[in-house]
């Protein structure tokens, strides 16, 4: 049995071993049982033969006994003989039946038994008859029967039969005995062989066990031993049973162990580093306080090297005098209790400076429970001390700040009425005029009965939401607290608390109200004044409009008669010429003709000449007035106007005059404006025309048209300022305002005109919400400035004429009237 070749597990191997043994024993036991049964059967058969023999002998004996008794009775007549005979007669049939019963189903014995029973019956029958004869007194007949020897023959027959039967049975019995004897011998042999075989099997099994299991366990044990001692391992066990698996598991374990060992080394290094470089100090002291370990952090804190401290210094050496006293007391406490927490010590650095630390310590005890060493952590308290100082500082500030501060705690988060006073600063009492410290623990409505529901809800809300709330003007008043307005800031604090900081703003509020009142008064006055101004403006605008309408209709009405004056004076002239022609004819008297001609050609034509001149002059004035009124009335088409092109067109149109007067015209870059193209052409045409007209004699005229970047301070954002500059006659200062008025002319002697041009310019610029003004010096020249709204402004939105000294602006260009 080669277990590792069969690839069986140990369980399977064990089962196989047991099965083999059991099978063997089963066969053996079966064999024995069978032999035993055979033996028993043989013995039973032998016994049966013996019983049958006994039965047959008993039948024969009783029959003989009865025969003998009969003879005796017949011979002697003594009743003592009749007894055994009767007995026999009585017993025999039962015995025969018994014998028959015993051989029922045994065909080999039926025949002999039947013969025995027949013989016995015949003999019994003879006896019965004979006995009846003898008892009936027929002794002779009975004796005769006896003498006939019939009785004897019948008994002999029976005897013969019984004897044959016994012979047969005896030989059968002997044969069976022999067989039993053989059986017993065989059994003995079997037992002997069985025992030997069993021993042999056990031996084989033991061998198999050793090879399949025990030897492998040995190899395994060896390997484990090698593992323990770290020796080289032998080859892995073959097969796939548990032992092989255990072997493999051990090997894997060995590999992992190797890894773990190296990891353990790394881990130890890391642990050491953690110890050394931890952000807190570590040290250990022995029972008399000598330092036996200290990490690098603590060494760094204190400024010592490890070899200066370990085993050389005691912890008290590193403490200030106060801390040393504390230490003596607390060290013994540590030894008793096993640990101390949050001890505050001041340590002395190597350089003598003091370092506050927080110290926690536990005890390491030896097996006997005695103090062996301490394990102590230390935290740098410098920062904390600073923070504590800051907190104290803040506390002091809160105590002395002029702002009231009350802290409330909301006991039940859902019920604002459970706000209870936790603490208040002195300023709170000072500001409110009551000792707030007496209200500690009171609900808010009890402490301040005048507090509003809304205010309470607000404070509770701060706790619930965690959000800061500010109430700008809280009015508070009760029996003890004077009415005042408060600025309140409520801010959330830990532990369901809300801080309420408050400041008295009554004075401020009063001042603000004063300012507000003054402001509104001012606003009212301003709006009144503005309304007045607007009214005045509207009046002015209306008057302007009425004026223009008046001028327009008057001009018109004047024009009609002028047409007549002019027309009929021409007609008169024609008539005069006709008259003169008539008078020239020779038909007239010479005296009359001369006088008439003198009148017609002299006074009449001279008068007509004056009339015509006056009419033309009047017509000119009326035209000017109409133009002016039209400048005020014509509807504007607002658009972005390209000023470069507009001015270029104007200069081109005036080119004839420019060349005639040898003038130089310079044009700068002109940004566009928002306005009416035609009206603006009129403005700049007029200004350029004026510049070309009023020249200083003997000076080469130079005209500049440009854009001024220096906006006058009063002009609004979005306004563009243009100028037209000449080096001509200039305008005397006294005249500078007047020239923008109608019919006002600075230099009537220089050129013809109605004095209407600049009035129209002013009117147009005004309607553009702009402004025109002049800077001039007599003999040097004039500069006309025009401010106009830039392109990005819709009409009327920007006022470029504010504070201007020309004319008032007029808003709302909507009216227009026509008439003939």
């Amino acid at each position, binding site marked *: 049995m080669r277990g590792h070749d069969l690839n069986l597990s140990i369980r399977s191997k064990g089962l196989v071993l047991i099965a083999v043994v059991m099978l063997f024993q089963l066969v053996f036991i079966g064999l024995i049982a069978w032999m035993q049964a055979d033996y028993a059967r043989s013995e039973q058969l032998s016994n049966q033969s013996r019983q049958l023999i006994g039965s047959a002998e008993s039948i024969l004996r009783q029959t003989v006994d009865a025969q003998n008794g009969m003879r005796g009775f017949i011979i002697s007549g003594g009743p003592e003989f009749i007894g055994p005979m009767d007995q026999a007669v009585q017993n025999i049939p039962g015995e025969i039946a018994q014998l028959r019963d015993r051989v029922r189903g045994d065909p080999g014995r039926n025949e002999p038994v039947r013969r025995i029973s027949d013989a016995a019956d015949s003999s019994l029958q003879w006896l019965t008859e004979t006995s009846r004869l003898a008892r009936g007194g027929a002794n002779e007949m009975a004796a005769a029967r006896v003498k006939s020897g019939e009785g004897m023959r019948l008994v002999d027959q029976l005897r013969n039969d019984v004897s044959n039967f016994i012979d047969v049975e005896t030989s059968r019995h002997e044969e069976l005995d022999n067989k039993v004897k053989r059986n017993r011998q065989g059994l003995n042999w079997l037992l002997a062989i069985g025992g030997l075989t069993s021993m042999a099997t056990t031996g084989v099994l033991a061998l198999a066990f050793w090879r399949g299991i025990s030897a492998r366990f040995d190899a395994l044990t060896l390997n484990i031993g090698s593992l323990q001692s770290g020796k080289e391992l032998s080859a892995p066990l073959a097969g796939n049973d548990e032992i092989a698996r255990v072997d493999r598991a051990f090997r894997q374990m060995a590999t992992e162990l190797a890894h773990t060992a190296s990891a353990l080394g790394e881990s130890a290094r890391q642990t050491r580093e953690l110890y050394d470089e931890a952000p807190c100090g570590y040290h250990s002291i022995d029972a008399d306080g000598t330092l036996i370990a200290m990490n690098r952090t603590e060494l760094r804190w204190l400024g010592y090297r490890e070899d200066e401290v370990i085993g050389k210094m005691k912890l008290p050496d590193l403490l200030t005098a106060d801390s040393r006293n504390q230490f003596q007391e607390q060290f013994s406490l540590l030894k008793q209790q096993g640990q101390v927490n949050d001890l505050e010590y001041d340590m002395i650095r190597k350089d003598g400076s003091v370092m506050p630390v927080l110290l926690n310590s536990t005890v390491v005890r030896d097996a006997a429970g005695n103090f062996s060493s301490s394990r102590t952590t230390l935290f740098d308290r410098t920062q904390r001390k600073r923070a504590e100082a800051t907190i104290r500082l803040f506390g002091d500030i809160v105590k002395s700040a002029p702002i009231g501060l009350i802290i409330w705690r909301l006991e039940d988060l859902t019920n604002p009425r459970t706000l209870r006073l936790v603490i208040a600063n002195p300023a709170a009492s000072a500001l409110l005029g009551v000792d707030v410290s007496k209200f500690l623990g009171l609900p808010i409505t009890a402490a301040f009965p005048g507090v509003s529901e809304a205010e309470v809800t607000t404070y509770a809300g701060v706790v619930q939401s965690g959000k800061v709330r500010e109430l700008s003007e809280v009015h508070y008043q009760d029996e003890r607290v004077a009415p005042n307005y408060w600025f309140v800031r409520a801010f959330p604090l830990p532990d369901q608390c809300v801080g309420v900081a408050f400041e008295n703003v009554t004075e401020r509020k009063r001042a603000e109200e004063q300012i507000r009142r003054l402001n509104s008064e001012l606003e009212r006055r301003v709006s009144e004044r503005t309304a007045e101004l607007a009214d005045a403006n509207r009046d002015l605008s209306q008057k302007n409009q009425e004026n223009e309408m008046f001028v327009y209709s008057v001009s*018109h009405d004047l*024009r*009609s*008669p*002028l*047409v*007549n004056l*002019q*027309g*009929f*004076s*021409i*007609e008169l002239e024609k008539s005069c010429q006709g008259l003169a022609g008539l008078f020239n004819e020779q038909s007239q008297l010479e005296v009359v003709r001369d006088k008439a001609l003198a009148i017609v050609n002299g006074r009449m034509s001279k008068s007509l000449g004056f009339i015509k001149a006056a*009419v*033309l002059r009047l*017509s000119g004035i009326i035209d000017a007035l*109409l133009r002016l009124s*039209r400048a005020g009335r*014509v*509807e504007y088409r607002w658009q972005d106007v390209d000023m470069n092109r507009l001015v270029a067109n104007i200069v081109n149109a005036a080119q004839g005059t420019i060349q005639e007067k040898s003038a130089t015209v310079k044009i700068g870059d002109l940004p566009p404006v928002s306005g009416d193209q035609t009206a603006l052409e009129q403005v700049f045409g007029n200004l350029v025309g004026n510049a070309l007209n009023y020249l200083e004699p003997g000076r080469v005229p130079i005209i500049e048209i440009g854009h001024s970047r220096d906006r006058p301070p009063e002009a609004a954002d979005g306004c563009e300022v243009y100028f037209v500059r000449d080096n001509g006659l200039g305008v005397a200062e006294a005249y500078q305002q007047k020239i923008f008025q109608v019919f006002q002319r600075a230099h009537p002697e220089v050129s013809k005109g109605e004095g209407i041009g600049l009035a129209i310019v002013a009117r147009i610029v005004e309607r553009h919400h702009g402004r025109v003004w002049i800077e001039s010096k007599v003999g040097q020249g004039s500069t006309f400035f025009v401010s106009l709204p830039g392109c990005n402004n819709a009409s009327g939105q920007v006022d470029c004429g504010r504070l201007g000294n020309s004319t008032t602006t007029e808003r709302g260009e909507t009216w*227009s009237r*026509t*008439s*003939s």
Partner: protein
Amino acid sequence: MVKNELVVLMAEDDDGHACLVQQNLQDAGIANEIVRVRDGQEALDYVRAQGPFRTRVPNGPLLLLLDINMPRVDGVEVLRQLKNDPTHAQIPVIMLTTTDDPREVRRCYDLGCSSYVTKPVDYAKFVEAIRRLGLFLSIVEVPREDAKA
């Protein structure tokens, strides 16, 4: 040259102007009958053959010379009414006025006037204007009043 049957109706409140226009038209060779009325209402009455003119039988082509500034009904109103009346919308209307306001001019053209002539103070110009008016009258195609009555 000028169709003789054409009647020129001149509405002009100023006698002098009427005289001057008449004289100058004649000087320009316009021989047509010129009927003068003194205001817009009379002009409308004439055209519609009503009021003082109810006896008039419209029987030939008619042309209107309208001053604007007149008592009662002004020229622009006459123009408006006639152009809104299908019976008389075809009658040519020439505005003759002292105003040279471009908006007034445009308004009259918008209402449907055939021509617009300003009366300049300068007599030479006036004569020239009337001459051109005569030229216009000589070429204008005027429908007969009774043609569509």
